[in-house]
């Protein structure tokens, strides 16, 4: 996947903001945005307008009892608690495609500005394990080719993290590793597993302990 120039990103910015880019182009745009504050600002401004468009949809009264059923659903489906303990599960052979879509960036976007995402692209925030300061976001797309992309920030260290995913069937796969530079970085790659099967994305530190996790459910 080739790197995009600022000029190209400016051309694509409205489509990024509207979620109107196919997965591979979106991944390239995300990678550029992780490096470029100027382009981030442009996409952020356009995203605000794109998001506002949702307000144009007409309101409609839901069927009688909607609120009661919705609230009852909260009780029926207790929130999952983020599991920070490292669970040794059956670690499958890594089935990762050979094409990486990025490496470590110097200045990642801790909070990518686009809220209106392509349907099918899921986003989740990393929640740091107790005692950890790791933060960031992960995007997963199950389009023509599944991919993961993440931005990570952790103080000012240069730690190396392993990206591990847990699938819905409980299997875990280590997708690869990357090193932060001056406390930040971004990383991503295409993967040979269906991204829709990914339940949780974890960052493991050099000891194999979970530093942060993000639920994609």
């Amino acid at each position: 996947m080739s790197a995009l120039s600022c000029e190209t990103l400016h051309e694509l910015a409205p489509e990024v903001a509207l979620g109107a880019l196919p997965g591979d182009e979106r991944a390239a745009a995300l990678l550029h945005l992780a490096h470029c504050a100027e382009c981030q600002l442009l996409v952020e401004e356009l995203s605000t307008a794109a998001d506002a468009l949702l307000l144009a949809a007409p309101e409609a009264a839901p069927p009688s009892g909607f609120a009661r059923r919705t609230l009852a659903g909260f009780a029926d489906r207790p929130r999952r608690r983020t599991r920070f303990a490292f669970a040794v599960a059956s670690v499958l052979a890594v089935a990762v495609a050979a094409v990486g879509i990025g490496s470590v960036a110097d200045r990642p976007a801790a909070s990518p500005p686009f809220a209106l995402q392509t349907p099918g692209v899921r986003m989740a925030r990393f929640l740091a394990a107790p005692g950890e300061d790791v933060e960031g976001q992960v995007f997963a797309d199950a389009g023509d080719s599944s991919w993961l992309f993440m931005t990570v920030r952790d103080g000012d260290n240069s730690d190396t993290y392993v990206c591990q995913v847990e699938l819905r069937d409980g299997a875990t796969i280590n997708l690869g590793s990357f090193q932060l530079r001056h406390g930040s970085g971004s990383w991503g790659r295409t993967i040979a597993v269906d991204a829709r099967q990914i339940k949780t994305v974890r960052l493991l530190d050099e000891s194999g302990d979970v530093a942060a996790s993000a639920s994609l459910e």
Partner: protein
Amino acid sequence: MDLRSRGVDALSDEALLAGLGSGDKAAAAAFVRRFERRVFGLALSIVRDSAVAEDVAQEAFTRAWRHAQAYDARRGSVVTWLLTITRNLALDTLRMRRPNATAPDALLELVGTSGERGPAEEAVAADESRDVRAALARLPVDQRRALVLAVFGGRTAKEIAEEEGIPLGTAKTRIRAGLIKLRGTLANEVLVP
């Protein structure tokens, strides 16, 4: 904090969301009451089926409840965050059930771009919704169509080009020009921070 003692309905959207995320039942009920018409309305506009829209709307509120802590006020208002969740769920649902089922004309009608919205309906719409519709209505119709297809139809530029029978470059130009004009209009109306 006991939200009941403060009158939850008077709380800001952000405070209600925080209460929802913390498990406060009164806040959760008030949150659903406050946004259910918008969430259901958007879901219905996209999936065009009341029962499916109800499922989508319920799931949207459940996602908001489960991921309330992920809300970042710097990235937009609570209502746009919630509507974004709803929009993506509705489009995903529609694509699973009936790929390519949503007709462009229906999409345009849903935001009043065909001029069929009556004054009575418009009068009860929230101010911000009226402002957005008015801004949208000021765009050339081809740009409106492109934006509506992208936002409510989940179409890529390539798909818009195919549906509209226009070159890809033209679809991209319409999207770009429409969104930039819309941004300018909304910014001038101080709707968009």
